[in-house]
């Protein structure tokens, strides 16, 4: 079978070059050619085989000499089967014409099937090692844009889906600085299916690259606005922890909290990054009808130890005095080790554990996106 990609651009790169397709990575042919990565997709995509051929730029069997190859027979028979008994030259030709017609009208069906198939493969690819690497390069180059939220300081965002089933929702942008999702600024992305990025990619990405600095350092930005923010921050701090010194963080901060470096845990949230409504300089009271109700959404404890639920649990149980229990220290160690080993394999192991745990607790595996289809990850891990 000849490949037409020698002169012309490949289907994949022309697809990724289309307006509105800027978020897509170019899935490697190796990945697509590995059947394992395509498991289960056949039933989701109409005209699967033709679509796959189109994606891989494989010339379809020419329609002049009819189906000789076994593979081709299977699906052509269904359509043309009834024509076969008619042996006359005329009708044979008619069949050919009809076939031609079918090709023309099907081309658009195949084209849209190919886009669907590519999207579904893409969802898996970007959670595989080479795919996530490719997305990391795009991320660094800011191909996905930045967070529109003022207090996120133009933190780079990542395309995600809120659903793994195609046709449900369009692509969204996940900001690691505020842990929220946003609609892409340009309407051309509102035609891109979110499932082609999937629900897993966003978080897996930041767990895979824990060393990525999230959010620009505050010092690089200039202007009075920042001075204002600094003042606000100081005010907030002194208000929320009036007992403690406003410049000193209350307790010793761990190097990792729940497996994440505190500096990388939602750095766009917390004191100084929460909008404080004011009228002529006076804060609008929470007790006013139009007063603030949503600050919690952008809050983050100054002392991240408050997020260490295990520790709090033991402390609240009165075990706090006896120091951290054995279990607790163990867990912290585990957390450290796990985050240090930022390899996908580790993540997979833990995921399996999580799956098992869930199974045990409530037999219904109804979490979004079947957890057992480990897709690309399994192959990569």
């Amino acid at each position, binding site marked *: 079978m000849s490949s037409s990609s020698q002169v012309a651009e490949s289907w994949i790169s022309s697809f990724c070059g289309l307006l509105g397709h800027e978020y897509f990575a170019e899935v490697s042919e190796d990945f697509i050619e590995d059947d394992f990565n395509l498991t289960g997709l056949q039933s989701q995509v109409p005209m699967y085989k033709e679509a796959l051929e189109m994606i891989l730029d494989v010339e379809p069997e020419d329609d002049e000499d009819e189906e000789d190859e076994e593979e081709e027979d299977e699906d052509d028979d269904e359509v043309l089967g009834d024509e076969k008994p008619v042996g006359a030259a005329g009708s044979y030709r008619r069949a050919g014409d009809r076939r031609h017609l079918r090709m023309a009208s099907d081309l658009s069906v195949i084209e849209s099937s190919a886009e669907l198939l590519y999207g579904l493969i893409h969802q898996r690819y970007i959670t595989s090692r080479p795919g996530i690497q490719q997305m990391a390069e795009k991320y660094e180059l800011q191909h996905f844009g930045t967070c*529109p*939220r*003022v*207090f996120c300081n133009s933190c780079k965002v990542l395309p995600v889906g809120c659903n793994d089933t195609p046709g449900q929702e369009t692509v*969204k942008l996940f900001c690691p600085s505020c*842990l*929220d999702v*946003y*609609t892409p*600024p340009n309407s051309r992305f509102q035609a891109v299916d979110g499932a082609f990025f999937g629900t*897993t990619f*966003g*978080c897996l990405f930041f*767990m895979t690259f824990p060393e990525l600095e999230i959010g620009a350092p505050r010092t690089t930005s200039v*202007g*009075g*606005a920042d001075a*204002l923010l600094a003042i606000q921050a100081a005010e907030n701090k002194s208000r929320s922890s009036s007992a403690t010194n406003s410049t000193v963080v209350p307790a010793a901060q761990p190097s990792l*909290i*729940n*497996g*994440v470096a505190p500096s990388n*845990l*939602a750095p766009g949230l917390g004191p100084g990054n929460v*909008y404080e*409504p*004011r*009228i*002529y*300089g006076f804060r*609008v009271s929470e*007790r006013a*009808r*139009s007063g*603030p*109700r*949503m600050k919690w*959404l952008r*809050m*983050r404890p100054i002392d991240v130890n*408050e*997020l260490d*639920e*295990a520790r709090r*649990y033991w402390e609240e149980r009165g075990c706090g005095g006896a120091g951290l229990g054995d279990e607790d220290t163990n*867990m912290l160690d*585990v*957390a*450290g080790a*796990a*985050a240090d080993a930022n390899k996908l394999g580790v993540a997979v192991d833990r*995921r399996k*554990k*999580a*799956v098992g745990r*869930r199974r045990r607790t409530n037999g219904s595996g109804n*979490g*979004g*996106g079947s957890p057992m289809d*480990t897709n690309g990850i399994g192959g990569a891990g």
Partner: protein
Amino acid sequence: MDDFNSETDSDYTSYWRDWFISSRGNEYFCEIDEEYLTDRFNLTGLNTEVQYYQYALDLVTDVFDLDCDDEMREQIEKSARHLYGLVHARYIVTTRGLAKMLEKFKKGDFGKCPRVMCEAQPLLPMGQSDVANTSPVKLYCARCEDLYNPKSSRHASIDGAYFGTSFHNILFQVYPAMLPPKTQKRYEPRIFGFRVHAAAALCRWQAEQREQMKERLRQARIETGFEEEDEEIESEDDIDDDMDAGGDGFEHGAIVQQ
């Protein structure tokens, strides 16, 4: 537009202001009444803020008739825009100004909140400072109570002081019916269907803060303003499906939950 109207026309021949508010990039501005502009009281203090103040004011009110070179004209034009902006900040907190901005808000002239959970809530322009040349205009969402950067660079270069720090908050005090219901719905980072522990722990901590606030409001007998007051049960099934980034699925979720 008629060519030559006498300057003191009473029926709103606002040539310059018409041009200004309909120019590309000036979509956030509303038209300031002639009446307001010609009342010197409303302009108190602005003469020191604006170069060529009197010429600029003449231009804005369509009574400019100075013969000058292009460069000078350009300077005055710039001053006129600045003056308009500064007066605008004052005008939009007046009854008439608020009403005009409310109409623009309802039409979505200031854009929609980009946050997915805010479901295209219309935004209001605001400044982070009332002092000119401090920071560009931002957009306020009354649903998530947060600030966003305008999408277009045309808007991103407008001075925030032309809208000020109070206007958007005053608007909702004056028109409380315009306050959108708040939502507790939020994005939950997941991996293969499982919550990510670090993010989930933070979400739970935030939820605690929210519940404390609601309790404070309840004790003061003030409405909380949330649309889904009864939906708290919803969070109960998530207790043990955290996907830990570290740690080993410690069964502590239940304790922190309520």
